[in-house]
């Protein structure tokens, strides 16, 4: 392409990059309003600005591409297709709920609220770019934008050593795994001679690669997995997760457990299903011959969910418990990726949406309990239902949904995942997942029992504000509705793959 063509492509790209532009405008608006001193501690102002900006970003991403393979924009570095639109909407929604939770949260102090919003929006920008980029260079940059800024978000709370310690661990593990992944990128670039992943996918899957030696492909797949498994908090790169989730402010924890995790899955699907697999027929994919990566992913998925659920059993800290639960859920989601067909991918996307609502909801209740004189330990939850009945009922809804009990959305998500796995004849994986669901019953129900049956140990007044109730309600409603009326969402998701 010559320069004129590129300039035209860059200009035309703005038609498809509405979400990114809206987020950039929001970042600038937050930055400028943050330096005006009288506004410095005005949480409501920053909340309104953020919500307006995110609403703008949401409307900008609503435009649906038609059928076909989508449109390349910004000098072919990005792809505008239903897949990226779906994830853009997802990330903007996650950011909106996070900022609402941060506004009502007292762990984030007034003078840091502006920066907190700014960082959440910047991480969202990184995730949105990640969902739509189809060039190794851009994927790396967007991945690092998302990661580096989430390290900073974790470090926001520095009134306790553990906040800094958590952030430090997160940075070191993150820098390590992304360095490994980058080395994998360099090998792929060398093998294909280009950075466009569609082109690389064609080259890697072509016949003349079949004779290539396996060692290189094994290394490439393992290096890619290192970065992606870290982001999704899966075995063997899950060790940071409980510490970071416990040490970070609760809204940030909620955001990390949903946003970057889903972004990890998005880029996982994008990279592995483009580079290391090719479409076969209408519904299926075939992995490259050199490495049987679906089997590796299936094994990792089984280990991840078992490890997450078994470690969660002993946890008395609710945030740590939810951290292990989120590791377990990463395991469930990996099952869908191992399936290597469209049914599995649809199940992953559906489960991610459900997970967005139920997991953010659980963390919203934790935030609300933290706000009074309460804490994160399970003893603060004993007998809580007498004092905050609505919050406890909502928490029960979220937890039942996380287990996957029928009238709630989590059940439908699990049914999709399990049916995809069983149709693919991964019976052992389905059995492991079923056993894990039973194990998870124990620790979720233990928390529910603590809230409704146990006697109160600590007497404190939970101060759940009106905004908190609104947020919790807004998250509980989809968790209930999607459990009985899931067809529209399922139909929408069917159209994106």
């Amino acid at each position, binding site marked *: *392409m010559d*320069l004129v063509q*590129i*300039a035209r492509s*860059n200009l035309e*790209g703005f038609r498809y990059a509405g979400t990114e532009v809206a987020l*950039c405008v929001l*970042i600038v608006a937050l*930055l400028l309003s943050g330096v005006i001193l009288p506004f410095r501690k005005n949480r409501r102002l920053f909340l309104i600005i953020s919500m307006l900006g995110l609403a703008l970003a949401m409307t900008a991403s609503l435009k649906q591409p038609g059928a076909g393979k989508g449109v390349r924009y*910004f*000098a072919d*570095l*990005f792809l505008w297709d239903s897949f990226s639109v779906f994830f853009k909407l997802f990330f903007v929604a996650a950011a909106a709920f996070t900022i609402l939770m941060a506004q009502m949260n007292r762990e984030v102090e007034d003078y*840091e609220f502006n*920066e907190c919003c*700014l*960082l959440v929006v*910047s991480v969202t*920008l*990184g995730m949105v*770019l990640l969902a739509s980029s189809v060039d190794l*260079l*851009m994927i790396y*940059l*967007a991945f*690092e*934008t998302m990661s*580096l*800024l989430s390290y*900073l*978000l974790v*470090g*926001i709370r*520095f*009134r306790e050593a553990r906040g800094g*310690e958590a*952030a*430090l*661990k997160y940075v*070191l593990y993150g820098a390590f795994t992304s360095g490994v992944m980058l080395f994998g990128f360099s*090998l792929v670039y*060398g*093998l*294909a*001679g280009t950075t466009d992943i569609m082109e690389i996918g064609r080259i890697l899957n072509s016949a003349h690669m079949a004779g*290539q*030696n396996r*060692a*290189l492909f*094994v*290394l490439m797949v393992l290096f890619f997995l290192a970065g992606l498994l870290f982001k999704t908090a899966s075995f063997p790169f899950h*060790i940071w997760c409980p510490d970071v989730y416990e040490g970070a402010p609760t809204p940030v924890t909620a955001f990390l457990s949903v946003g970057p995790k889903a972004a990890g899955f998005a880029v996982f699907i994008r990279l592995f299903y483009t580079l290391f697999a090719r479409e076969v027929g209408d519904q299926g994919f075939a992995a490259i011959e050199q490495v049987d990566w679906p089997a590796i992913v299936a094994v990792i998925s089984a280990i991840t969910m078992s490890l997450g659920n078994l470690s969660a059993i002993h946890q008395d800290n609710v945030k740590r418990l939810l951290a292990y639960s989120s590791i377990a859920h990463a395991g469930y989601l990996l099952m869908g990726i191992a399936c290597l067909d469209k049914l599995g991918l649809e199940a992953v996307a559906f489960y991610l949406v459900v997970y967005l609502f139920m997991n953010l909801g659980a963390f919203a209740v934790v935030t609300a309990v933290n706000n009074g004189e309460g804490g994160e330990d399970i003893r603060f939850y004993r007998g809580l239902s007498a004092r905050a009945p609505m919050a406890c009922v909502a928490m029960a809804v979220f937890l039942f949904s996380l287990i996957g009990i029928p009238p709630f959305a989590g059940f439908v998500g699990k049914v999709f995942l399990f049916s995809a796995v069983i149709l693919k004849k991964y019976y052992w994986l389905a059995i492991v997942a079923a056993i894990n669901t039973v194990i998870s019953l124990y620790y979720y129900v233990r928390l529910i029992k603590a809230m409704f049956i146990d006697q109160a140990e600590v007497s404190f007044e939970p101060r759940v504000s009106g905004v908190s109730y609104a947020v919790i309600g807004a998250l509980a409603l989809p968790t209930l509705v999607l459990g009985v009326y899931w067809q529209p969402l399922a139909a929408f998701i069917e159209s994106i793959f």
Partner: protein
Amino acid sequence: MKNFAFNVFVIITLIPSFWVALSSNIVHAAFSLFFTFFGVAGLYVLLGADFLGVLQVLVYISGILVLIIFGVMMTQRAQMEHISTRLPGRFAGAVLSVLVFGGFMVAVYKTAWPKLTELPEPVPTTSEIGNLLLGKYLIPFEVASVLLLAVLVGAALIVRQSVRKE
């Protein structure tokens, strides 16, 4: 002449890098890093990336390395070593590294890399990089600037908090 330069750069890249990984004295490790960065800059130049060679010296040696040495000096007496990292032990680490390197040996030698038959003459690349940064890679360039801006804000926030504490 070129081969001689190549050998020298390889030696000053690789030998100090062992020190970086092995030395128990963190100041020695940081100082060895200086040689490694310098050797890598030389390799860049031999690979036809003159601009990046200079940038390596400017960014890595006078930026990143100075920052690291700053960090080493400021936190020298702190008991930071005790933060548990819970990575695999030394033996497992050594085994893993040897395995990875063995994999590389096989991969590098056995792979038929799609080599160009005719290598183009090395030319100064600065103007080409400029064209690409303002042309095809304009958006990544802008994204990188947003990233750096947000990092600036966030890092200032973190450090400011501990100042407030004092």
